[in-house]
């Protein structure tokens, strides 16, 4: 199989490390991928210094969007909220290490979009 489905993606999709619910949620956001109706919910817990101590996601999604969410959650734990606000899409794509076409790019970046919604404190929550 090709790069799109190299082992990292399939493994992360099958056995995500950061999927589930958080007991204490300080920031959260949920959104849909209009292309397929997939749903992603991101929850973040921060300490008194606004350092992210835990982050989880749930929802339904393809291997790309699930793996992307899992990798992103791992990436932000230990970072300050302001650092997370500054994450550019290239940073996440580099972590995934895959070139995407315009359609799958939406799947790959959905997690970042939802995470930004959470840290920027958008109103919408789990629906």
């Amino acid at each position: 199989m090709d790069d799109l489905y190299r082992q990292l993606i399939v493994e992360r999709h099958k056995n995500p490390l950061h999927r589930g619910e958080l007991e204490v949620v300080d920031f959260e956001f949920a959104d849909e991928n209009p292309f397929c109706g997939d749903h992603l919910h991101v929850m973040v817990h921060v300490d008194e210094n606004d350092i992210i101590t835990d982050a989880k996601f749930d929802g339904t999604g393809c291997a790309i969007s699930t793996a992307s969410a899992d990798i992103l959650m791992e990436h932000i734990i230990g970072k300050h909220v302001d650092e997370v606000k500054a994450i550019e899409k290239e940073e996440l794509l580099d972590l995934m290490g895959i070139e995407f076409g315009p359609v799958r790019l939406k799947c790959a970046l959905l997690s970042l979009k939802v995470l930004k919604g959470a840290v920027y404190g958008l109103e919408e929550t789990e629906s």
Partner: protein
Amino acid sequence: MSLFDVEAVKADFPILRREVRPGVPLIYLDGAATSLMPSAVIDAMRTFDENHRANIHRGVHTLAEESTAQYEQSRQETADFIGCANPREVIFTRNATESINLVVNSWGRANLQPGDTVLLSEMEHHANLVPWQMLAAQIGFRLEFIPVSEDKLLDRAAFRQLLADHTPKMVAVMHVSNVLGTVNPLEEIISAAHDAGALVLIDGAQAVPHMYVDVIDLDADFYAFSGHKMLGPTGIGLLYGKQALLEAMPPFLGGGDMIKKVELRSFKVNDLPWKFEAGTPAITQAIGLAAAVRYLKHISMPLVESHSRELVDLAIEQLSGIDGVEIFGPGKGQQLASVAFTVRNVHPHDVSAMLDQVGVAVRAGHHCAMPLHHRFGVNATTRASFSIYNQEEDVSMLVRGIEQALAAFA
């Protein structure tokens, strides 16, 4: 076993000569989203643009005369193709979606009031849901839905009950489901709706490409379809409407060509069908659509239908044999052209991306029918759809790709 020379047909579609990537030929199973175009269609449009291109119904120079004649000839040929002898009843639009929006906004605004009911179905494409929802929100009429049964068919008993309970003013349903492949029993639906005093709008986007449709025989009041799903170009669609209804309706879009006379504060509307064709239409695409119609007629619609049914039946048979594949459709012998399915533990996007590895193009997602997917408790499915340029080997490649996806995600 083919009913016509599929290899010869394939040779007529230049895009099938390309490879998806080196060494991987294209197997196109996404005609239900948009079909491929044969050279005859591409050439007809090119010939028109290279030799006759001019605006229609304006100017009296040679090119304007030629393009007007060809545009109206295209209307005539397309009307003939759906059994309609009266070209005044055939309106060119951008696509089936615009055709439906035309009826909703023109007929709907003029005829629907608070308390009225429009009856749709649970299997509708968003094109036949959202325009009604938008107008209902403004006017306050009621929407009711014919349920889809567990066997993926419209619930006929429930339909009759809804007719009796609500006496809808309009029944708007699809002819063939773009997800389930279900062919709805239009004769029964239309005659029952008429008996109950309702008009009937049919979304025929998935029917006209694969079967002979006679709108007069069906007695449909409105029938909508798109050119790009029937070997024609994008940007051209059609609305058939009964003349008396179209004449009584107010115009939809305003502008040039839909008027006889304009003053600063008033206008006089043009005759049918131009009354509903404001602005310069998709002239080249109308020429292309007529070429697509000629191509389909040349094969003959009964053979086109048999071929689509044979391939979809073969796909249903082979997919049913794969452990982990679940088909969403009424089953063998009952589906036209399309089969939608899920693969255990593999998201439809991933199924589609894995199939792309072996050159197979399918659609993944909700296919613009989110309520139908929710009805069956899934977010998305993968859909393979077949046309005249597909053959048995394409089904084998589909199966191989799905087996690879299952193995990769096992």
